[in-house]
């Protein structure tokens, strides 16, 4: 960037991003809260009914009937980043800000003005891009990023096409400055209510007065605010060397595609083109020291139909053949959507390669683990991720609640407290207990039963579905041991498991 050129900063602030990231409509009554049960954002109808930010959620709920959602910070970040990726086509100098004071994008436009035929046209294009995303925003232009940010917060859906003049800042309140609350409080205690008063002090005593009292951080911030539109250059401390703006780095995206001379009608025919595209991906991964945890295939037909097929792995890797195997397995399961005229990798989940050291002796273990993974992945590919599950223990007294299944790639509980671990439990627990026949005070289940151990009484879950049972170990005449219980509420007998 040309350091001699006068900078032009566009600040875009997104006051409702917390709602938009959750796909909530701004017309509905929605409250977004944090872990401390405080309202961090609300839709405009809520504010009209007296809701305030940082209000306790319970109090806010008393004011109106509203949908409540927990804040998803990650979703907000992703949304912001995806917008930044889009705006990258206009300028490489984008700063994403996602902090307590709000979410914003600051764009430096001075280098792009010629390319887009002037500021107005450029702004039109940017605003159009943002509007298409359906996000509420506030915008302002200024000679510094700090000033632009500040001014954007003061305007209501401002389509700023001109640089703000120096007086625009002066009316702003100290509370709107992008600095910590303690410093704001200290400034207010010294009588500074708005930026006009700050500027007046700056003019009179220079930046040193602020530097002494509140440190270089505030002094530089004020310099940046007022310097942008300053006329008297010697009043402000201009840095000797102007800092270069940082380039924005959009998410690396990998795309590649192949078009066929004639549409392919069977899966076998797709093997070769898939292999080719994946080889290219493999080369790309190697050259960029990246790994991949999944791809999305896109199929296109002659008549512009489109279909996608994501293929995911448990771990990141560079093994494109694994991806090929998984893709073919999945394709065989799903079938070709139509005659395929175009095949592309439209998305690859890329990660930087980890430089991991390996023990020489662990090669076999590693190989076994890899085989296990492959098996798991194949099963998941065939059956669906959620359909391949493993056992996880649950710390519970009630037997049918004492275990559960989790997806094979999730963490499972494998150890229980000692008392539960030592309990005598059948190796096979019936999915549902089966009622026993009782004849002349004798129990029957596929044969007469004799109680040999027990009772072990379980009384629990009074807070949802009360359970009160006396469990026994019963011996059938064919020496099969069963786990039976008497329901103390209904007085019926059931078999629950087999040893």
């Amino acid at each position, binding site marked *: 960037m040309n350091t001699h050129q006068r900078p032009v900063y566009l600040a875009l602030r997104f006051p409702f991003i917390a709602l938009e990231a959750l796909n909530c409509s701004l017309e509905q009554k929605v409250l977004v809260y944090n872990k401390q049960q405080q309202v961090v954002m609300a839709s405009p109808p809520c504010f009209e009914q007296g809701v305030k930010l940082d209000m306790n959620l*319970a109090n806010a709920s008393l004011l109106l009937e509203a949908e409540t959602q927990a804040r998803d910070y990650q979703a907000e970040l992703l949304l912001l980043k995806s917008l930044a990726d889009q705006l990258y086509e206009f300028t490489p100098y984008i700063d994403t800000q996602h902090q307590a004071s709000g979410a914003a994008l600051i764009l430096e436009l001075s280098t792009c003005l010629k390319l887009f035929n002037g500021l107005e046209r450029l702004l039109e294009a940017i605003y159009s891009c943002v509007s298409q995303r359906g996000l509420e925003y506030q915008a302002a232009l200024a000679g510094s990023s700090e000033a632009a940010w500040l001014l954007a917060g003061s305007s209501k859906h401002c389509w700023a096409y001109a640089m703000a003049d120096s007086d625009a800042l002066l009316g702003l309140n100290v509370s709107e400055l992008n600095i910590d609350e303690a410093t704001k409080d200290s400034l207010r205690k010294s009588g500074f209510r708005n930026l006009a008063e700050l500027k007046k002090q700056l003019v009179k005593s220079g930046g040193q007065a602020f530097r002494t009292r509140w440190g270089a951080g505030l002094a530089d911030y004020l310099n940046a605010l007022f310097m942008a539109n300053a006329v008297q250059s010697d009043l402000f401390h201009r840095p000797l060397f102007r800092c270069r703006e940082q380039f924005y780095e959009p998410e690396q995206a990998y795309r590649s595609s192949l078009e066929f001379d004639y549409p392919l009608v069977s899966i076998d025919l797709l093997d070769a083109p898939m292999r080719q595209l994946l080889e290219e991906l493999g080369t790309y991964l190697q050259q960029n020291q990246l790994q991949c945890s999944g791809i999305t295939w896109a199929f296109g037909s002659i008549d512009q139909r489109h279909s996608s097929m994501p293929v995911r792995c448990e771990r990141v890797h560079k093994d494109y053949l694994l991806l090929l195997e998984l893709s073919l397995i999945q394709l065989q399961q799903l079938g070709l959507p139509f005659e395929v005229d175009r095949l592309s990798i439209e998305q690859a989940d890329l990660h930087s390669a980890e430089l991991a050291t390996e023990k020489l002796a662990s090669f076999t273990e590693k190989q076994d683990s890899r085989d296990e993974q492959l098996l798991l992945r194949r099963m998941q590919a065939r059956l669906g991720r959620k359909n391949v599950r493993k056992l996880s223990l649950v710390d519970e007294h009630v037997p049918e609640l004492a275990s559960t299944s989790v997806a094979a790639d999730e963490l499972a509980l494998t150890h229980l407290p000692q008392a539960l671990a030592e309990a005598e439990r059948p190796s096979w627990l019936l999915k549902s207990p089966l009622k026993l026949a009782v004849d002349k005070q004798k129990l029957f289940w596929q044969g007469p039963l004799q109680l040999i151990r027990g009772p072990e009484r379980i009384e629990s879950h009074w807070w949802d579905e009360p359970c009160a049972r006396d469990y026994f170990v019963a011996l059938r005449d064919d020496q099969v041991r069963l786990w039976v219980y008497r329901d103390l509420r209904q007085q019926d007998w059931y078999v629950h498991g087999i040893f």
Partner: protein
Amino acid sequence: MLSALYCQSNFSFLCGASHPQELVERAVELGYRSLALTDECSLAGIVRAHQAAKCNNIRLICGSLIRLQSGEAFIVLAPDRQAYAELSGFITLARRRSNKGEYQANFEDLRFRLKRCFLIWLAESRLLERDKDSKAMFAQSLAKAFARRLWIGIDHRLLKAEVSAFLSWRQLAETVSIPLLACPKVLMHTKARKALQDVLTALKQRKSVQQMGSALEQNAQAYLKSPEQLSRLYPEELLLEAQILADRCHFSLDELKYQYPRELVPGGQTPIDYLSALVEQGSKQRWPQGVPYKVKQLISKELALIAELHYEYYFLTVYDIVRFARSQNILCQGRGSAANSVVCYCLRITEISPDMIHVLFERFISKERDEAPDIDVDFEHSRREEVIQYIYRKYGRERAALAATVICYRPRSAIRDVGRALGFEPGLIDSLAKSLAWWDRKGDLKRRIAEAGVQNSTRLSALFYQLVQAIQGFPRHLSQHVGGFVITEQALSSIVPVENAGMAERTVIQWDKDDLEAMQLMKVDVLALGMLTALRKCLEMVGSYQRQIQCLEDIPKEDAATYEMLSRADSIGVFQVESRAQMSMLPRLKPRCFYDLVIQIAIIRPGPIQGGMVHPYLKRRDGEEAIDYINDALKEVLEPTLGVPIFQEQAIRLSMVAAGFSGGEADELRRAMASWGKNGNLLQFEQKFIAGMLSNAYSKEFAHRLFEQIKGFGGYGFPESHSASFAILCYFSSWFKRHHPAAFYCALLNSQPMGFYSPSQLVQDARRHAIKVLPADVCFSSDECCLENIAASGENKLWALRLGLLQIKALNKAAAQRISSANKIKTFVSVHDLQLRAKLSRIELEYLASADALHSLQGHRYQSHWSVAGMQPSIMGCQVAEHALQSKSPEMIEDIQADFDSLRLSLRAHPMALLRRMAAFSSCRLQSELKFIRHGSFVQVAGIVTGRQRPGTAKGTVFLTLEDESGNINVVVWKRTQELFRQTLLNAKLIRVKGRLERKADVVHVIAGQLIDASEHIAALSTKSRDFH
């Protein structure tokens, strides 16, 4: 017949799910012969269990559950007195070496400390193969250490693998020759308490019940079972062994004999001789002209009874403490029924002489009552710690400790904890707890739950309600009593365990005042009274410029101007008569003498109000109603109160003179009246009373009428002696207010927290009395508020009140004192000079700047902050960077807000004076205008909420106090209005009221029709309301 040897009550905090008395009563129902209360490392519930056991004729065994650091658990039982002392000492040792609420015990402690106790080693787990050898070794050590005092306790609760566990333990027991016995674990008296027990367990682990998993008890078997149930669970020999063990335990708490500390009596004298000598010496000081004959008779009578009941040491102990306090110039005064004692007056424990009131010793001590006396002594609250440390020094921590207070679940805490345990949303729990007013009854809870959005029809909400009801009254933890000391001759830990309190250098016993009373242990209440501190400070100030006032005795008695001031209800800050209700009564009663004050203080109490005494008294006082005493005997009792019984002592004396009761019997009647709703004792007294009156030739109709009349207040009416003790302080404080108002307010401000009113309200009142109040300033203020002479004119100096630096909220005492000391040497000339000489940190300077206390050095607070922020470190200390501030000075409202933030008051305009310019308040009348408005007129008022009161006698009416720039407005809120504007009434800081004005004589109220929350106008102002019953 059975015995339960392992029972934990709710004094095993957050574990046991039944009260001790519930366990005892249930054991009786089931036919148990005895029950051992074994709370974990505690004897906190043992007295309650003992009382219940005595009433129900079942033997209580004293014991405790102890878990060693190694994990082994034991029941320790006390078979005899010595064993009990061991157990109590053991618990003390384990508790004293740990933080509050915890304990540490190990095997060596058991071995060396418990030589007579019985031990039951609890077989809590299955003996796995890997454990057998180590368990066997441990068992051998135990067997060797405890010989025939050791058993292994088997607990069958239908858990997993109990049979195999039992077999392995039996094998071990046979190997080491330790007998087994049945020891079922009991956590509740009935299995219906299982849900509550689970909630308590979840609370202990700070989780919800849904998250607890196997950490909850597997079933509800840990309850008191019937003999039939136990015989199905345990072999006969185990049950028998348990019974044999129980039968060997014969200790009863009744064997505990309290001994007063002996060192108080000099060698060669008996206690009564020494006491008598002290009383005689004191009486000569009290009556330098000669002790009147009547007084001598009273003294003899009292000393005779004291000797007969062996209470000499008690009086000597209290005398010694009071003597120490006086030697240190700490103001103190006994209160309560002790003021009926001439002996206490001679010993200078109390200040009520027999000619001030109609003393009645039986109200204090009587043979019939058979209870240790209870003397409460108030000390200056700022110096009470000196008295406490004296007691510790004199008797040692082994023989003196504070009594406990049991902190129990109340509605709000019950809602919070049960809600948390059931996994309710934190926001919901919060709103539900906050929506409860302090006056809501149990029945209101269901409505509040429904209002909060919890559907009453769901299972969980029904459970929530039941559990909240059940947990109320359950103990949560022990705290220390305000000042109740127990002092013994022997080691205190041989009677009751002592543990660490939350405060450093404090220990508490595990019994509260009710337990002490039941066990007849002496308790001396070393209480704190802010007014005594204020009076001493006042004396010091006044004494510095008026030499003839050096002590309270120098204050002129029966000063007419003082009474005139009180008759105008100008009593803010005055002891006991500054409340809204008292201020309403003062203009009607118009006190003219000391005894009028005694009546004034006593008459605004539930007893006289509920007994309908107030209006008849006032009417007779105003000559609107004739007085008929029936005869001279009754006249003597009732004449001081114009024929209307007001004091408890009058109820006692009436039954003596009219029905022929002895003094002790009469006091028993009074106590029966106090509890007449709870038991049937009153009936027997009623019959005797009527018969006695009839025999004294009173009519039956009159006898019944009189009995009913005194029944209404006999229990609730105020003791005359107590009222008189308070009236003395009331008079002194009134006199100071009337004649030395600057010193009076200054002393009150320096004695905070105390009294009814905030510093802000006191300052407002001072200014209404034309006292100039000067702001806190580093160049003029001391650490405390002080008097500043603003116009010297011979002896009639004009005093202003200078606020002290300690009024600044965040400034610590040390910094304030440094500033004050340095300024006294030489007045500060700059902020730099201040920082250097007073060694202040930057943050302390900022506190001073926030309080505008640098005004004389820097100007307004913006400039002060600017200067302080600019201070830079240098070799010589901080220097101010010289850049002049360009900002304007703060607006008035900003200054007021900053004043409240920093000082909790402002000397500038009252916020209401500024708000009145706004349209919303333009129609609101000032408090000073109300007296000119016609009774019954519609009126609007507004003010900052400074008090909310809902007296129990007012049938649900709430009295609101609003402060504006001209004074305090009394607002009456009926029940219907409360319901309509509940949130505003409970939570608003600033309220606008529309209502009707009501005037009776000089007392003005506004009856609220509508309450409007205007808090947003003062949202940033730090104000506080005083809310109480």
